[in-house]
């Protein structure tokens, strides 16, 4: 089987990036490329820091998924809500979170987004609509639906975008919340990042129909599948769903198909998996695809690409330097703080 046949088997809705897309402003297209580069640069640095034992616990990297967060968040407006997953660095970055405050959090510093109390799996910036990452598969789906109901109650025109994975698509709350979102016509986009692996279990071993988007049918919700390695396709699908939600026409389920290339987390060697079967995907790196499209199809210069890459690398350098040199360690006096509201301490 040729590589292109293999990719079409994995991603039936595969869209080659060979023709210029005119209905998305070029500025947005370039910005999505920048976001993808920023995420990759951040994650590669996280991997280094984790290997150096500077980042504790688990670091689930968003490598190869960049097109999904970058495309999806480009379709949102300021104030819209997102909920994230255990693999959430990319979601936060794409939604505009500051790399230095994220890096400070990963290094456990008081200046971090969560004051050093959350770490990799819980990065949140609620005031900016980033309702947080959660370490329990599927547990962001309810809160995302609640945020959508909140927007409906307040009539503030906001929408809620719920990132979750193929793993969460088998959790009960996914079905419960899609049902309620449909019944109540809530402004929410359920965006399933189908990377086909739940830690060490491949989706087709535990799920008869791996077309997650088809689950929408039973709930009377539109469902679409998109090429998750194509940032423009992700943007287009999410934009349509966002417009629909904002118009008061209710939820959409989007399944972004891609493939996890790396381990479940930085320390996972994937001994359980035949890695030779995904070699063909190395040529479908979503960032390289977008770069090739921008330079060869759209005439963006190599200088522009290089400038973007060096700009984001500099941002990450600064983020690491800030976290390592300018931030402070929390102390014992921080232990009980933030548990209850308004400074109440309950021993």
């Amino acid at each position, binding site marked *: 089987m040729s590589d292109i046949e293999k990719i079409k088997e994995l991603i039936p809705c595969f869209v080659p990036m060979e023709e210029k897309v005119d209905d998305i402003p070029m500025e947005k297209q370039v910005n999505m490329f920048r976001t993808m580069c920023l995420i990759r640069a951040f994650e590669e640095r996280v991997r280094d820091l984790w290997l150096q034992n500077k980042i504790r616990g688990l670091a689930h990297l968003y490598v190869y998924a960049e097109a999904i967060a970058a495309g999806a968040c480009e379709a949102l407006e300021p104030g819209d*809500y997102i*909920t994230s997953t255990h693999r959430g660095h990319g979601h936060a970055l794409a939604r505009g979170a500051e790399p230095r405050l994220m890096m400070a959090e990963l290094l456990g510093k008081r200046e*971090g*987004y*969560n*004051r*050093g*109390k*959350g770490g990799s799996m*819980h990065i*949140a*910036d*609620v*005031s900016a609509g980033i*309702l*947080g990452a*959660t370490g*329990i598969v599927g*547990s962001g*789906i*309810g*809160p*995302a*639906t*609640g*945020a*959508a*109901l*909140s*927007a*409906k*109650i*307040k009539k503030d025109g906001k929408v*809620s975008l719920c990132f979750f994975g193929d793993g969460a698509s088998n959790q*009960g*709350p996914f079905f*419960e*919340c899609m*049902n*309620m979102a449909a*019944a109540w016509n809530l402004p929410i986009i359920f965006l399933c990042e189908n990377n086909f692996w739940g830690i060490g279990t491949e989706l087709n071993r535990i799920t008869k129909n791996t077309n997650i988007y088809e689950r929408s049918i039973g709930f009377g919700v539109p469902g679409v599948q998109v090429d998750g390695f194509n940032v423009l396709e992700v943007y287009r699908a999410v934009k349509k769903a966002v417009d629909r939600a904002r118009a008061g026409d209710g939820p959409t389920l989007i399944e972004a198909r891609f493939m996890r290339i790396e381990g479940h987390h930085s320390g996972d060697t994937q001994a359980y998996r035949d890695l030779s079967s995904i070699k063909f995907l190395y040529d479908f790196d979503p960032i390289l695809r977008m770069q090739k499209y921008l330079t060869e199809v759209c005439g963006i210069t190599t200088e522009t690409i290089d400038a973007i890459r060096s700009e984001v690398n500099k941002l990450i350098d600064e983020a690491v330097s800030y976290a390592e040199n300018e931030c402070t360690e929390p102390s014992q006096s921080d232990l009980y*703080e*933030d*548990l*209850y*509201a*308004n400074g*109440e301490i*309950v021993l």
Partner: protein
Amino acid sequence: MSVMTVREAINSALAEEMRRDPSVVLMGCDVALKGGPFGVTLGLLKEFGPERVYDTPISEPGFTGIGVGLAATGIRPVIEIMFCDWVTLAMDQIVNMAAKMRYMFGGKVNMPIVFRIPFGAGGGQAAQHSQSLEAWFNHVPGLKIVVPSTPADYKGLLKAAIRDDNPVLFFEHKRNYMLKGEVPSGDYIKPLGKADIKRSGADVTIVTYSSMVFSSLEAAEALEKEGIDCEVIDLCTLLPLDYDTVLASIAKTNRVVVVHEAQKRGGIGSDIVAEIVERGFDLLDAPPLRVGALNIPVPYNEALEKMCLPDAGKIAECVRKLVNNQI
């Protein structure tokens, strides 16, 4: 002052808070059109409309999660879990999200959510409609647990719970919904975390809450005739728990019995006794004792159910043993 049932007290607390604050919404199975399984929310749909009072599908994990999302974005949801027994279905969102979001997000989110949880046994409803699971939540930092007894306390504590910016579990004893009592008029608020001395006494402290307050008062009356003078403390709130009031009472009586309807093993009485021993061992003239249900599921048969649950007679018997050094 006016005389109200517990049901009316809760209903008026909800209505007053919803009138005062448009961000208060209600949600749960049957809470809107039917007015709740126990009639507690009757009339609220009519007054506040379907955008404030939601009938949900039977999807506890889902609608509890929706409540968390509402609370994180500036709404103050009051979620009803129809029977305490089914809070198991909502545990992930209560324990891992509502309780922990503020802390794990570094204090940068508010979680003003109330879970109204009808609980307790006594109507022949057997093992899956009779439980008292409040102690489970005592083990989860970040939550508050409220367990009122009188109509006035139900009203004042529920209003305080709704105004609290933390997740609050509000346990309503199903057997007490028709109980009548005087309720202060006006905007009556009773602060969370303060225990109430429902009866003063000098010989033994009975520490209890919710429905067992009445059984304990009944026991105290019987014991008075035998010359045993009991002080009955109604905890009102289990988390945070007012140990100052408890220890001050024990300093006077030097004897304590902790009473709850929940099963004795692993009940909150175990934790309360441990705290009393750690903080006030020298105050005690006798070992602290516990009264609770037998360590079995609540049985259906009326006689078996009665044998399983604590009552005034069993409480009095325990106090007698304590006072007469027959332990």
